[in-house]
């Protein structure tokens, strides 16, 4: 096999080099390509927090390796065919003083036509074998016993995350453990939707997978470095499809167990926020939201038990601070026109109290 998945494609600078060598370019040509392209590629594609060409997990990395092979083959085909075309246009352009009445008429040639039928077939076979390998390695990977299970449920226009073995329900900010390549600890996502179709796409971790009502899909991620990985819903799901953002936090083992511990606690009962809790429980909030340890058990909207610990609200649309939270409760459509939460029409006093209460829910 000229191209192996296990090949360590370390980063953008060496990936194309290895692949160009592997797919049989002469050293001179591939050298020239390799020395200029990666830097240019890196300049364009490393600027973005959501670039598919800056992989940070196994599925994204194997796709990236395959992509480079496909890109190399397609570029070579393009250069050859476009070059021939350009040459033909220049060489056989009509010139002044063309004396013949018409050029020689050629109706075809079986040998030539056979050659440009067989050659593409060979390329297709090579491409298909390389592709099939990645498909099966990614989609039929055996699930390790230490894998973390998370249930992902798509809603118009937010994400619900459930950790069934840990008893945690949260929303919009997915926390997973970082997966050390020497001791892999992947996270398996079991996905479905509560309403319309959605798609989970965090480009630096893996390809996308759709969340479809009445259907259960699975995918897995294994972020290699701690940090925040961004993405967003990639299947049109309604008015606010654009603001259904994804945030995946890859936590170090210490951080992750601390986060679990915090999430497993009952929502905090700060005495100073008791007024806000009363307002929350006396209003329609409880129909859609859950806050553990209170009378709020709604499931249409995000679970708010620890909403104060999140960095953002409205599915990543705005930073989570008292000002934004207050504005969102007052009129959710201000940030997200078309959001399903109605304006609550609370008076100023109640609005302040509820904001203070929600901010206290760490």
């Amino acid at each position, binding site marked *: 096999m000229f191209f192996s998945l296990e090949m360590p494609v370390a980063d953008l600078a060496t990936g194309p080099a290895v692949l160009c060598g592997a797919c049989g370019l002469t050293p001179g040509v591939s050298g020239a390509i390799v020395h200029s392209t990666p830097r240019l590629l890196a300049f364009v594609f490393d600027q*973005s927090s959501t670039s*598919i060409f800056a992989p940070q997990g196994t599925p994204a990395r194997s796709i990236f390796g395959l992509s480079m092979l496909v890109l190399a083959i397609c570029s070579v085909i*393009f250069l050859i065919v476009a070059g021939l075309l350009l040459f033909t246009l220049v060489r*056989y352009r009509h010139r002044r003083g063309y004396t013949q009445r018409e050029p*020689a008429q050629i*109706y075809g040639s079986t040998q030539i036509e056979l050659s440009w039928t067989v050659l593409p077939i060979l390329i297709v076979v090579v491409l298909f074998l390389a592709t099939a390998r990645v*498909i099966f390695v990614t989609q039929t990977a055996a699930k390790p016993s230490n894998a973390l299970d998370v249930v992902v449920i798509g809603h118009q226009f937010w994400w619900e995350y459930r950790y069934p073995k840990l008893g945690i329900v949260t929303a919009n900010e997915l926390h997973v453990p970082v997966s050390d390549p020497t001791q892999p600890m992947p996270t398996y996502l079991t996905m479905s939707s509560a309403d319309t179709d959605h798609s989970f796409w965090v480009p630096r971790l893996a390809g996308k997978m759709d969340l479809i009502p009445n259907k259960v899909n699975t995918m897995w991620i294994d972020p290699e470095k701690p940090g925040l990985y961004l993405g967003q819903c990639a299947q049109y799901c*309604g008015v606010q499809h654009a603001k259904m953002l994804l945030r995946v936090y890859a936590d170090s083992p210490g951080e992750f167990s601390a986060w679990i511990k915090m999430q497993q606690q009952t929502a905090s009962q700060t005495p100073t926020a008791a007024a806000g809790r009363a307002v929350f429980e006396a209003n329609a909030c409880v129909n859609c939201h859950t806050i553990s340890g209170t009378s709020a058990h709604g499931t249409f909207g995000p679970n708010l038990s620890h909403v104060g610990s999140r960095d953002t609200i409205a599915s990543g649309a705005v930073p989570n601070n008292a000002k934004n939270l207050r504005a969102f409760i007052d009129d959710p459509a201000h940030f997200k026109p078309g959001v399903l939460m109605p304006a609550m029409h609370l008076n100023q006093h109640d609005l302040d109290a509820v904001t203070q209460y929600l901010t206290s829910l760490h």
Partner: protein
Amino acid sequence: MATQIQVTVSPALRRDWLYHVQDWVTTVDHKKIGLMYIAYALIFLVIAGAEALLMRIQLAVPNNTFVAPQTFNRLFTMHGTTMVFFVGMPILFGFGNYLVPLMIGARDMAFPRLNAFSFWVAAFGGLLLYFSYFAGSGLYGAGTAPDVGWFAYAPLTARVFSPGHSTDYWTLSILISGIGSIGTALNIVATTLCMRCPGMKLSRMPLLVWLYLVVSGLVFVTISPLTAAQIMLLIDRYLGGHFFDTQAGGSAVLWMHFFWIFGHPEVYILVLPAFAFANEIIPVFSRKAIFGYPAMVAASVGIGFVSLSVWAHHMFTVGMGAGPNAFFTFSTMVISVPTGIKIFNWLATLWGGNIHFTTPMKFAIGFLFQFLVAGLTGIMLSVSPFDWQLGSSYFVVAHFHYVLVGAILFMIFSAFYYWYPKMTGRMLSEKLGTWHFWLFIIGFHLTFDFMHIPGILGMPRRIYTYEADRGWEIWNLIVSSGAIFQTIATLIFVYNLVASYFKGEKAGPDPWDAWTLEWSTSSPPPSYNFAIIPTVESRRPLWDRKHPEEPDAHYE
């Protein structure tokens, strides 16, 4: 050489506009129906182009508020639906209607009245779609256009997620225009099989006609599941059915299968006529016979069949599992083989020729380069793991616009410059044509080359705005700036169409020194096309007539 028969209309009647209206409304002449198809498609092209322009203004900068989210969602739904069903299909059927009988030496289509019916039904479908802007919310609300996207995935179309009537307008207009498409396809198949002039065996039929035969066959096979799906959707929405209603056990994936078994061959329904134009135009301006006619026919028929087995490559991310993903990857890759044969045969046709860079040829050459790129990005997308990243991103949007604009629209422009003299008797201005070409190609590449990049950087399609911190801003600004060039170029083109009708240079029957039968009759052709039905002995009857010493018949 054709004998002219004069049908006299009194001068007073000629001045009466009602006479002309009645003449066009009641016509069953394939040429007039063809022209009406083309005119109607051009109007929708301008409307849907304006929708695209509004979307690009909205996306030029991040967090823009130029249009509301709901408005944006309606814009992309209407843009896609209009361009596919009410621009692409009718304009190609228009050229087919006009050219097929002329190129096979027939006096009309096999079923002239069915032809008129098909046109008026399709035209009504387009009007119905846009009527939603006035009536989409029903009797008591203001109008709203559909906002479910052009492939209208279930369950977004269920009544609970899509109240009011906007989705009904979408469904019904597509259902109705589908009836028109089936009628026209039936007509083209019957015409090509039964109405060819003496001597025109299938193996001598112009490649354009061959491709229209394949297209019509595809229309039969693919419009049927689409129509069935629309009826099922209506049953869901009004008769309590649960085909796609996931809240009641229906299947969203079922809709995807129904839609894409139509939707992917639909791409070929649109692109094969573009190949058809290229097959006629490239040889004439290279002054050579098409290279490898039998292979071109085989490749066209092959594409037709293979295109029916690739639909689920639109569904690599819906969780079909590894086996189906591998199968559809393979079938999709296979289609690149016959497509490659076509590109190489065009290249070989140019090779050794005497290439004249007229406006139609310039657009055809643009088509060749752009179709090459579109094919290669198509191969990238066929690699299903690559598609898990690129699917539903702006890379896909760039890819299919490379096909639809870079290949198909370029060949449609080429066809306009090439056959306008036949249709009107006057040449389009070459000077304006050159401006049109260069401005359009600059705008096209600014827009659609750079559109690939935000897709690679993780920008999904169908979002009305985007965050400022993702590195997408500069690319979107460049993409939007290209739209300005394309708009100006299109306006020049429309002006050229109108102005040249009145002031264009007289064309004569055969301005390009071409070889197929339509150029043997006057421009515009009389209503009966040919006073005497021609007899042909080769694939290029006019070549034989112009070169009696060395006719094609000796070499085929």
